[in-house]
Each structure stands twice: as C-alpha cells, then as structure tokens.
C-alpha cells in the first residue's frame, strides 16, 4: 500500500490534534479566560473613565491577545515531546515542515481563533467605537495565526529545555512587535472612521511571510532540539 499523500497526512494530523485538544476541553478555555482577565485588569488599574479607555482599547486588546497566544504556545510540542511522538513525526516519510504546519494550524484553531468570540464583548466593555468592531475581528483573524507561526519557532527551539518558558518569551516577543504595531493602529484608525486598508494589507503580508518561512525554521529547530 502506498503511503498517504501529503495533504492526507496534513489533514490526518490536523484532525488528530483537534481530537486531542477536544479530549481535554478544560484546557481549551484557558487562553480565553486569560484574555478576558487581563483586559478586566486595565479599567481597575487606570480608572473607568470612558473616553480614556476607548482610546487605549485597541492597544490593551492586542497586548492581551498577544500574551494569551504566547502563554498557550507551550502546548504545541510539549506533550508530543514527552511521549516520543515528536520523534516519530520527525522520522516520518512526509516532509516535516508540512506536518509542523498541521500542528500549528490545530493550535491556532484551538487557541487563536476563539479570541474572536470574546473580542467584541471586551471591545464593548472598553467602550471601543462601533465602527472599529469589524476591523478588530479582522486583525485578530489575520494576526493570531502569525503569532502562532512565529511562536512555534521559539517553542521548537526551547522544547528540550527544562526551564524553556522564560526564554521563550524573550525569543518570541521582539518578533511580535510588527504584528502588534499594525494591528492596534488598524483598530485605532478604524475607530476614528478612517480606512485601515494600509494596516490590513501589511498584516496580510506578515501572514503570508510567516506561513511560508516559519514552518521551515520550526522543522529545522525541532530536528536540532531532538538531536
């Protein structure tokens, strides 16, 4: 029997990861709860003065989304590293970058995408201008996959380390800066009614760049940290 075609292997791995994530559903809620929690801290810290909150809403929402996605990065390879399935994946007949892309997509579907559900609620809580809701959702839709893709490189580099968590944030956060800049300014500009097409097109560029380059870097990093 011939081995599975590449796309079959991709979809199989994606379905398996989603099944695994679904099996321990309780963990799926963690990034969401963290996202909401961090955002509720800000009004407590700087007072609930409406137009101040509305002005800084884009920034807080995106910093919280960024931290939530970074905290959940560890889950991509950690369990596979511990039980040896990561080794088997590296030794599979299929090219590793494609398998890595399957795993990162599964991770994004489980942790990045759900932020979409909660973002409008939080925007409303912070009093963000209604015109910006559409752009807010669009930036999260385009931005969170880039966070997962870039983050997967950092995770692959630190998966073998005992105390990888701290180093992971030092490696990954500087690389998140461009996404943060363009997404929060897109919402900010949309809130004041101006078109945000420039920022959105930049984020699309980041998405395609990350989609094409980061799986290769992650595969190399995984091979290296398994050796």
């Amino acid at each position, binding site marked *: *029997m*011939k*081995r*599975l075609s590449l796309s*079959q*292997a991709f979809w*199989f*791995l994606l379905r*398996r990861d989603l*099944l*695994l994530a679904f*099996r*321990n559903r309780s963990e799926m809620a963690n990034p969401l709860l963290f996202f909401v929690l961090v955002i509720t801290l800000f009004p407590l810290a700087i007072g609930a003065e409406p137009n101040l909150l509305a002005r800084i809403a884009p920034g807080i929402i995106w910093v919280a989304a960024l931290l939530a996605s970074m905290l959940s990065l560890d889950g991509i390879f950690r*369990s596979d590293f*511990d*039980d*040896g*399935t990561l*080794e*088997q*994946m*590296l*030794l*599979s*007949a*299929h*090219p590793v970058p494609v398998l890595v892309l399957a795993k990162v997509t599964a991770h994004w579907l489980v942790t990045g995408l759900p932020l979409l559900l909660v973002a409008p609620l939080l925007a409303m809580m912070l009093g963000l201008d209604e015109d910006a809701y559409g752009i807010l959702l669009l930036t999260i839709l385009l931005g969170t996959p880039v966070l997962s893709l870039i983050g997967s490189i950092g995770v692959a580099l630190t998966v073998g380390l005992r105390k990888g968590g701290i180093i992971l944030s030092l490696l990954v956060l500087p690389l998140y800066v461009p996404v943060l800049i363009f997404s929060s300014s897109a919402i900010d500009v949309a809130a004041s009614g101006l078109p945000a097409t420039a920022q959105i097109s930049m984020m699309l560029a980041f998405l395609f760049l990350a989609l094409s380059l980061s799986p290769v870097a992650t595969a190399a990093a995984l*091979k290296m940290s*398994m*050796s």
Partner: protein
Amino acid sequence: MSALLQTRDLCCVKDDRVLFEGMNLALKAGQILLVEGKNGSGKTSLLRILTGLSLPESGDVLWQGRPISEVGADYYEQVNYVGHHDGIKRDLTCLENLRLVQAMGKPLPIDLDDALEKVNLYRFGDNYVATLSAGQKRRLALARLVVTEAQLWIMDEPFTSLDKASMAMFQEMFEQHLEKGGVIVLTSHHDIEMPQSDVVRLNLSE
C-alpha cells in the same frame, strides 16, 4: 550482496566525552546487530545516530551506499524506530494510535484489529492508552512493526517491561523479518535466543 546499513568511521562525543570513534559497521539483509554495553556507554546515542535523529561528531551513516542525510525521507520511510519513549499518545485509543502510525509511515494492508491480536492486545482496541499497563503500552509501541512496512528496524530496549511470553513472541517476529530480508538493530540487557549465524554483536563498553 552489498551491505544495506553501513557506518564510515563514525564518531560520537557527548559532554566532551568520546563515546565511540572510528566505528565501521556493515549490516547485510537478514542480519541483526545487538548493541551491548554498560549504561552511558553510548548505546542510545548510536541508535539515534543510525536513525538520523542525532548528528554524529564526524563520519557518515550509509543506506544502500548513500549517506542518509542525502537519502532523507526515503530513508525514514524504510526505518521503524522504537525508542525509550513508546511514541504513543495517552489520550488516544489503541486503534487511533495505530492509524496515526500508519499515516506517518508506509502502511501495510493489514486490518488493525488483526495487528492488535498479533501483539495480543485484541480486546483493547477502543481503550485509551492511559488505561494500559506498562507491558501493554510497550506491546502497542512494538505494534508499529506490524502495521507499517520498513526494511530496517531500530529498537532501543524493546523488551523492557515485557513478560517472557511476549519476549518470545517478538523474537519470533524478528526472525520472520530477517528471513524476509530485513535488518534489525537493537539494544537489550536480556540475551536474545536467535540463530547465532546472523547475529552481529557490538560491545560499546570495552
């Protein structure tokens, strides 16, 4: 018949200690390499280098005459590796794990329940791996050899936590694999009762 798996003056260094150097192995079809030695003598490192997971300090591993770094995925397709970790997901059932193993490698046209029966895990198809005992998990890990087609089997302590009967059953499976022209590399503390003609012994600690 030329050697299937060869190494050319392989050298491995770990934490500045030279585990082995200038190693030249040659394994023909039907041969089994038993790697012995005290703990820490580099058995696992040698196996991981042979699979291509780790890079040696210097020297090459050749498959059918070509370095494995060149052969790449085609070499991995020919290899079944069972390491210290069982390589199975705790939260999946036995059948789901086997389907995963088949998706990653070159699947054999065998019904998965028959495969489970071969490693006498017949009724455990839908059980979560988390509920299995250590011996059962090891047998499921070794079931990888039954559901995917690979000429080279590389196994690190395959018999850990296996009882006598299972050990005999797997050794019998190894013999069939050798007769079909396969090659096996394994490390083991227990001695293996195999026809001595095709057993190549390598001791790393002398």
